[in-house]
């Protein structure tokens, strides 16, 4: 049984007894300060938004099942696609891989009882539901934003203002949440480590979160500033980004991508970290190349900050700029490649359990490598000039963001659910979930590469009839993905009620979160926090771990 912290930051009142704190499932709706509760709050909240974002994706795919714009009014289509992109990125991927797993795992990994700033942590989470509701309500009240998740002016200045303003407010709230989270992670990882635990002994996910948080701190504020300027343009009729008032739209694009390119690594670095935790456990081998893994994260962080203009190759950027951004972008393949080869080497010679967590992780490798390779192709200016703003790009990023990060999220749920709930998930259902997702995903997004190369632009509700068949194939894939959420939900709900008891450490893992009960007590470990200096010491005699 657990209690949540009773203290409040500003009131000096003595601690109320445990009875004043919400118990059981109710605490998940409270302003709990327990990092584990907050982590689960992020996960569940994010998943709800995933369903909503998925529902919107479903509407997109229904519309695109026929070449004419018949299912949704054209304005609505643009609203739906803007909401879909925004929700999936800012309310699903970013909060879940950072806030969700980060809050749950990082204190364990550094040997702490909680995050550095528990209250800030709770505030960061509780900014998310209102921001999400705001965004979704805007659709029903004044009409949602219509200018895509990129909100490029001058289009975002001429579409209905109310929806765009709500969109900006919502993204600002989510950005603040993300910055608060980043501060917390940096402080926790750098300053809250248990005595005796060195940085180079941390599990890889801690490194990933450190790198991610640095990106969050450096890039999110720029987005905030940009959106504030954009809102001035909308409300006060200034002309920062309004060419008819002497403004410059390309400056907006630079500032936006200065955040939004790093944002893609904010969405994927934590996933890299999670995979680095999952694979060694189930392959029973140490994580291969720990040191290079750490440095490749740092390299990705650095390079990630200087490649943003590859989204603007057709925006009339000067040639030298295109050249620089091409080279810098393509070079991200090197540190990323190191990580993938290291994972392959981790699997090589292991005793790999082929369970759902491993299958999702390995499918992540397949999908991400494909998405990464198309990314490197996109980085080549002459190539991009043809496929920019087409379905080729849509395919690229869904391969990475869905095939990569979402697959890792599922893998992580299979891996950590036993710890979080004390119960195992059902494996056969997990396999069904995996197969449906993998097949549906590839069916949905694979053919989109072809669409883009052959002339279908993105963000359209109608298209050339020659593309009908391929689009329908893609829609069938989306349907499979929608169906695939059913076995997953069923699995989670059933297992929560009646899954097999997990025990403390069902995977015989060595990282610190497994060295306590499932679910862990509020203080994480009874007694002193264990000192784990070899989180990947598989294959060694116990004394040498």
């Amino acid at each position: 049984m657990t209690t949540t912290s009773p203290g409040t930051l500003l009131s000096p009142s003595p601690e109320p007894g445990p009875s004043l704190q919400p118990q059981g499932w109710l605490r998940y709706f409270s302003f709990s300060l327990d990092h584990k509760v907050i982590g689960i709050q992020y996960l569940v909240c994010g998943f709800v938004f995933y369903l909503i974002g998925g529902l919107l994706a479903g509407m997109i795919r229904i519309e695109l099942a026929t070449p004419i714009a018949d299912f949704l009014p054209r304005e609505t289509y643009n609203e739906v696609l803007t909401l879909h992109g925004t929700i999936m990125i800012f309310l699903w991927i970013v909060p879940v891989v950072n806030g969700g797993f980060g809050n749950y795992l990082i204190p364990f990994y550094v040997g702490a009882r909680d995050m550095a700033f528990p209250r800030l942590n709770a505030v960061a989470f509780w900014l998310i539901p209102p921001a999400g509701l705001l965004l979704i309500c805007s659709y029903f009240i004044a009409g949602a934003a219509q200018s895509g998740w990129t909100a490029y002016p001058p289009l975002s200045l001429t579409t209905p203002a109310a929806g765009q303003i709500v969109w900006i407010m919502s993204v600002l709230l989510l950005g603040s949440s993300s910055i608060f989270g980043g501060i917390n992670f940096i402080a926790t990882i750098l300053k809250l480590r248990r005595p005796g635990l060195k940085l180079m002994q941390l599990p890889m996910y801690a490194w990933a979160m450190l790198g991610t948080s640095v990106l969050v701190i450096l890039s999110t504020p720029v987005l905030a500033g940009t959106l504030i300027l954009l809102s001035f343009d909308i409300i006060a009729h200034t002309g920062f980004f309004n060419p008819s008032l002497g403004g410059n739209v390309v400056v907006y694009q630079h500032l936006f991508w200065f955040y939004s390119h790093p944002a893609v690594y904010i969405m994927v670095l934590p996933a890299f970290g999670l995979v680095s935790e999952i694979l060694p456990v189930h392959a029973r081998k140490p994580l291969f190349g720990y040191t290079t893994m750490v440095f490749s994260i740092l390299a990705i962080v650095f390079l990630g900050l200087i490649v943003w203009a590859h989204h603007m190759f057709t925006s009339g950027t000067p040639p030298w700029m295109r050249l620089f951004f091409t080279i810098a972008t393509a070079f991200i393949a090197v540190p990323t490649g190191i990580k993938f080869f290291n994972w392959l080497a981790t699997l090589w010679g292991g005793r790999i359990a082929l369970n759902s967590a491993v299958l999702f992780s390995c499918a992540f490798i397949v999908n991400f490598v494909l998405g990464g390779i198309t990314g490197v192709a996109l980085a080549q200016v002459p190539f991009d000039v043809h496929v920019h703003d087409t379905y080729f790009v849509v395919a690229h990023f869904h391969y990475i963001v869905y095939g990569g990060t979402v697959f890792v999220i599922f893998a992580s749920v299979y891996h950590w659910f036993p710890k979080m709930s004390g119960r195992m998930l059902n494996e056969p259902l997990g396999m069904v979930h995996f197969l449906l997702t993998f097949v549906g995903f590839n069916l949905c997004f694979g053919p989109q590469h072809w669409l883009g190369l052959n002339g279908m632009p993105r963000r359209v509700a109608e298209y050339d009839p020659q593309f009908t068949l391929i689009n329908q194939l893609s829609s069938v894939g989306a349907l499979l993905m929608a169906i695939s959420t059913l076995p997953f939900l069923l699995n989670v709900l059933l297992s929560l009620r009646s899954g097999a008891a997990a025990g403390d450490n069902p995977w015989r893992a060595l990282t610190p979160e497994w060295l306590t009960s499932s679910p862990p007590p509020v203080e994480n470990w009874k007694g002193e926090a264990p000192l784990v200096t070899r989180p990947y010491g598989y294959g060694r005699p116990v004394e040498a771990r």
Partner: protein
Amino acid sequence: MTTPFPAMDRSADGSKPQGGEAAIVDHGHGAAAPEHPDLRMFGLATFLVADGMTFAGFFAAYLTFRAVNPLPPGSNYELELLLPTINTALLVMSSFTFHRAGKELQQQRRDGCRLWLLITAALGATFLAGQMVEYFSLPFGLTSNLFASTFYALTGFHGLHVTLGVIMIAIVWWQARQGGGLSHSHPFGFEAAELYWHFVDVIWLVLFAILYLL
């Protein structure tokens, strides 16, 4: 126990876990764990890096606008330098007076500390007043042209920071009174306000350089 935020070092007021599963545990800083160092200054510093990036974005936008977006003819205006220069001097001075207040606090001279805090706040307020005077004497408004908009956005956003700083100083001034809860060994509120104030000062220097001098 004299920190402004007593909850942060709860172990000091003697709550002990009652043992067993039902123990009340204040995560991370309860008695069950050895109390962790106060990381609030570290957190604030990280936040200021983020805040600095917001300004950096604005500066970058301003410089790019300047370089590539000519203003319509006839809308150019030479900024008056006298008042902003005085303002700059005031703000720089206020950083020193704040520092002085810190010295006083260390030596447990609360009255001296409060006096210097008051001077600091007064300098900040004068800065704001000067800024207002400048605003009203400018021949352009927020939407006159691109330069005007950027000018107001940058100085306004900075002015907002100064306003916040003045309020923070006022709070610290109140806390620094005899028995007001500000300890001299571990004065988080004071140190936070000071770090923030120096940050705002440095940002102004950059802003002044690129907006007025460049």
